[in-house]
């Protein structure tokens, strides 16, 4: 007997899916209204297009430069960090290309979520227009101060970025730069932190030309069974 009257049958569901970013035909798409193949591809970098996707507008020259600088600062992922380490293990176990990428992306998304959640008070201060950097995000490290100085040197001088003169940690400074580029929400920040770091984490994961279980430091760190 055909089943025709269930929970979903009594609703007049919409027939169309809403699109907000990409339009046009599949062979000649537009992104936020800009023609991709004859306009964006000709005049803009990938970083600018990625930012335009999220904020809805082509960024100004100085925002684009600041965004690109932040992406480059964020890009390196050491093999000591869980996402690249997870990529290496996936490769070692024999995961296929999609398995390596998906595992690395999940680990990076988790790392990004963790970082953003630790900086929610900073995000609130930025959104509220506070004048003082919350104490939690001030660095006591000379190495970090130097890193933030290098960031400042690479940023365009005409872009206003909050708190950079108040001794922020490098992560806090980078979040302030991304905020100044128009990324104001947790989801946008997690998206960009993950995207910026994905190529390098995957590259480090798959770089070992001869992966072998015997050459992998299985007991680092050491696990002690204490039932």
């Amino acid at each position, binding site marked *: 007997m055909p089943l025709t009257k269930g929970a979903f049958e009594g609703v007049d569901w919409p027939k169309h899916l809403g699109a907000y970013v990409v339009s046009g035909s599949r062979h000649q798409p537009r992104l936020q209204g800009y023609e991709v193949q004859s306009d964006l591809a000709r005049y803009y970098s990938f970083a600018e297009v990625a930012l335009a996707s999220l904020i809805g507008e082509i960024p100004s020259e100085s925002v684009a430069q600041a965004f690109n600088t932040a992406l480059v600062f964020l890009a390196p992922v050491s093999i000591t960090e869980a996402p690249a380490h997870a990529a290496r293990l996936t490769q070692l176990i024999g995961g296929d290309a999609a398995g390596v990428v*998906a595992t690395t992306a999940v680990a990076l998304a988790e790392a990004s979520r963790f970082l953003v959640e630790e900086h929610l008070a900073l995000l609130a201060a930025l959104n509220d227009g506070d004048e003082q950097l919350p104490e939690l995000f001030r660095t006591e490290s000379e190495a970090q101060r130097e890193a933030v100085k290098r960031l400042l040197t690479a940023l365009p001088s005409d872009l206003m970025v909050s708190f950079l003169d108040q001794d922020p940690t490098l992560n806090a400074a980078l979040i302030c730069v991304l905020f100044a580029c128009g990324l104001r929400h947790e989801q946008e920040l997690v998206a960009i932190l993950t995207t910026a770091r994905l190529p390098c984490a995957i590259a480090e994961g798959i770089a070992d030309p001869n992966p072998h279980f015997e050459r992998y430091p299985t007991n680092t760190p050491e696990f002690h069974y204490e039932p």
Partner: protein
Amino acid sequence: MSPKKPSSTEGSEKEQGPGLSIATRTGWASGTDNHFRGYAIGADLLGKESFWSMMSLAVGGPRLDDNAAGMLSDLAISAAAADPRIWPLKLVRLVAAYGRPVPALASFFLTMDGSMLGWTAAKKASLLLLDLAEVVGDADNIEEVIWQRLQQRRDSRTLYGFGVPLRPADERLVALTGRVEERGFAARPYWRLSLSAAAVILRETGIKANIALGGAAVYLDQGFGPEQMDVLGAAALSLGPWANALEGAQQAPECLRRLPDSMIDYRGPEARPSPRATKDRNA
């Protein structure tokens, strides 16, 4: 408690790195008989424990007798909805459309964890029940105390464990209730509290309880805490996703990989030239 310095910053500060030793209770590869949560698999567990008793051990709980393990099995079966139009299952279908079931299932777990549905709802409903249990105590006027407490909690935007869209009652909770009664678990404290809370909220707001509330009560009555529910709930809710992941991968329908363009309702910015294209054109 003062706020903690972000560890994502502190970690990079430590020149020596963090300690390189981690204690584990999960298991040990003995080489002859794997250890699992303090038991030898072959000598102690195999042939004696059910899947759900092993799940209990996995999350740090006790070995379960047949009735207790059967209750967890009943919960999983009660919740085994598999209609691919159910939103998380449609998500499984989308990912499976490229031909592999396991990544599709992984996407289900990633999406549901921290969402407003599934085990996250059960976990949050369990926090509500724990809170209510504390305020209800030995009170005689339980429903009145519950309603007062719920009024105080109005800042919570979502009342987890409540709300039944598209049908008059949650058939999964109805099914679970029958099994709870049959197994003799209906007199347990969190189940009774869940019934009281369900009655109060139905009377005061017209909103009906769903299986997240019942599942939370079942877990709490068996001694499992909210953190363990993430894992138990994910395992319990995997039947419908597995069914959809496999069938979806087998079918791999093109219409799910890409809907026809005619199905799109574009609501973004109108067509426009970029600033650099405009400048180039005007030069």
